C-alpha cells in the first residue's frame, strides 16, 4: 500500500511476468498431471521391476541387470532365443506393414478427395472394418481363409493360408491393413480438406498434372500429418499383438505361427505358469527403447526437411 508508484508497477509487471510463466502450465498442466499418474508412474514401475525377479505375488528379489544380460547376451537362454525370434518377427511386421498402412490409406484419401460420385458411401465402407474389435476381425478372417470351409475354398486354394509361409504373412498384412486403415485415412482426409483449393487451381492452370499436384502441393501441405501417421503406425506395428494372435493360432493348444515380441512378453508375465514379470518387463523396456530410437530417427529426418 505504501509503496511508490514505480514500485507498484514493478510489482504488477513482475506478477504479470509470473503469470506469463505460469500461463503455459494452465494449458498443458491438466494433461501433464493425468499423464504423470496414469502413464509415467506405471512405466517407472515397469522399469523398476525389470531389475527384479518377481512372480507378481511374493516379494520381488533384486536382480540388477541380470534380466537384461540374460535377454541380450546369454545365447543359450530361452529368453534370448525368444527375444530374438520375437524381434525378428516384429521387425518383419514393421517393415511389411508400415509402408502399406501409410500408402494405401493415403491413396484412398487422395481418391476420395477428388470427390467422385458416391464418395461418402465409399469412405464409409473403407472405414467400416476399423469399427470391429480385433476378436471379431480375427474370427471373420479365419473363416474367410479356411481352405475347407472358407471363401478361398471357392477359388480352389489348396494351401492352409494361415499356417504356410509366406502366405501367412501376406494374409496378416492384408488383414491388418483392412482392419486399421480407416484411422490413417480419416486423418489424411481431414488434412487434405484443409489444402487450399486455390493452390490446386493455380497449379492446374500452370499445366501441372494430377501426380505433380499431389507431389508438389498435397503432400507438402500435409507433411505434419504424414509425420504423425508415420510415427504412430511404426510404434503401433512394434506393439502388434492381436492380429497375429487371432489369425495364426491353430485351434486349441496351438501356438501362433507368427510369434511377435508382445506375445512373448505377455506369456512371460501372464502365461499359464508362475509369472516371470521381471524378465517380461525387461523385454518390454528393450522393445520400448527400439521404438524410441526409430521414432527419434523419424523426427530427425523430417525436421531436417524443414
Amino acid at each position: 500500500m505504501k509503496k511508490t508508484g514505480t514500485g507498484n508497477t514493478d510489482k504488477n509487471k513482475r506478477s504479470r511476468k509470473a503469470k506469463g510463466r505460469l500461463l503455459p502450465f494452465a494449458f498443458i498442466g491438466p494433461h501433464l498431471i493425468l499423464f504423470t499418474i496414469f502413464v509415467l508412474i506405471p512405466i517407472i514401475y515397469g522399469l523398476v521391476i525389470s531389475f527384479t525377479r518377481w512372480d507378481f505375488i511374493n516379494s520381488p528379489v533384486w536382480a540388477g541387470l541380470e534380466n537384461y544380460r540374460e535377454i541380450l547376451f546369454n545365447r543359450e537362454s530361452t529368453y534370448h532365443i525368444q527375444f530374438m525370434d520375437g524381434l525378428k518377427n516384429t521387425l518383419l511386421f514393421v517393415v511389411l506393414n508400415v509402408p502399406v498402412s501409410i500408402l494405401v490409406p493415403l491413396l484412398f484419401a487422395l481418391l476420395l478427395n477428388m470427390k467422385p460420385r458416391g464418395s461418402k458411401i465409399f469412405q464409409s465402407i473403407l472405414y467400416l472394418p476399423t469399427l470391429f474389435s480385433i476378436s471379431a476381425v480375427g474370427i471373420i478372417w479365419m473363416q474367410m481363409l479356411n481352405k475347407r470351409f472358407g471363401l478361398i475354398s471357392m477359388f480352389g486354394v489348396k494351401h492352409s493360408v494361415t499356417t504356410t509361409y509366406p502366405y501367412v504373412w501376406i494374409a496378416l498384412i492384408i488383414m491388418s491393413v483392412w482392419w486399421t486403415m480407416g484411422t490413417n485415412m480419416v486423418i489424411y482426409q481431414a488434412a487434405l480438406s484443409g489444402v487450399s483449393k486455390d493452390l490446386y487451381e493455380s497449379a492446374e492452370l500452370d499445366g501441372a498434372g494430377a501426380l505433380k499436384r499431389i507431389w508438389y502441393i498435397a503432400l507438402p501441405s500435409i507433411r505434419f500429418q504424414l509425420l504423425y501417421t508415420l510415427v504412430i503406425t511404426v510404434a503401433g506395428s512394434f506393439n502388434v499383438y492381436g492380429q497375429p494372435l487371432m489369425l495364426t493360432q491353430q485351434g486349441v493348444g496351438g501356438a501362433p505361427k507368427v510369434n511377435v515380441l508382445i506375445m512373448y512378453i505377455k506369456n512371460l508375465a501372464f502365461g499359464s505358469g508362475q509369472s516371470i514379470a521381471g524378465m517380461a518387463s525387461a523385454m518390454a523396456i528393450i522393445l520400448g527403447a527400439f521404438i524410441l530410437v526409430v521414432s527419434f530417427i523419424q523426427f530427425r529426418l523430417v525436421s531436417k526437411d524443414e
Partner: protein
Amino acid sequence: MKKKTRASRWASCTILTLVAAVWVLPIVWAVFTSFKTETEIKTKGFGFLPKVWTTENYINILQNTDNAPIVRWFLNSMFMAVTVAVLSIIIVSLTAYGYSRLKFKYRDQLFYTIMAISLFPSVINIIPLYKIISVFDWVNNAMAMIIPGLGAVTNIFLVRQFSLGIPKEFDEAARIDGAGEWRIFTMVILPMLKPVLTVVALFSFTSVWNDFLWPTIVFNDVEKMPLTAGLQLLQGAYGGFQLGPILAAACIAMIPTFLLYLFAQKYFLQSMSLSAGVKG
C-alpha cells in the same frame, strides 16, 4: 480442363468401386452369417446368403438379459464413451495448443519427452494401473474407464501436428488486436481445429467402445460393464464357440460407432483453411 477433371473423377470412382466391393466382402459375409443357424455355419461350407434365414442369434443375445443385460451394457458404454470423447476434446485441444502455439522454454523437449515415454509398450502396466485405480477407489466404477485414457499422448500429437500447420500470422494479427492467449485459443485456433477435433472425438469414442481387456480387469459387476466387454462374456469358455452369436454381437456392437462415424464425417471433411480464409 473440366473434361480432365471429370475423367479423373470417373477413374477414381471406378477404382473405389472395385476396392470397396472387396473391402466390404468380409463384412457382408459376417452380417449374413449372423443370420444363419449354427448347423448351417458349421456343416454347409462357404456361402454368403443364408439358406434359411434366422434371427435366433440376435434373439438369443438380446433376450439373454439375465446373464447379459445388453441394454444396460449399451447405456454404460454410451455414458463412458461420450464422457471420454467430450473430456478428450477439452484436454487435447488445450494441451495441443500449449505445445504448438505457446512459447516457453523447453516446450518441444518436454513434448518429445512425454511422447517418447508414451511409446513404451504397456503390457505390464495393468498391474500398477490397477493399483492406482484402487487408490482412487475406482474399481467397479466408470471413472476407471474414463480418466486414465485422458493421460494418453497420441491424440495430442495429432492435434499438435494439425495446429503446427496453421500460419503464425493468425495469432499475431489477433495479438495486435489486443487479444489474450485464451481469446486467441478459443476464437482463432479452436474453430480451425474443429475438423481434427471431430476426428479426436471419433477415435476416443471408438477406443473406449471397443476396449475389452481393461474393462474386464476393473469391473466385476456385470451390470456396470461396457458393451464390448460384456459381449466378450457370451463367447464359449474353452473356445468351442458358436460363430453365429459372436458375429451377431459384433454387428450389434458396431452400429453406434458407425452412426457416430457417419455423423462425424460431415465435420472432419469441413475445410480447415476455409474457416481460416474467412478470418483472414
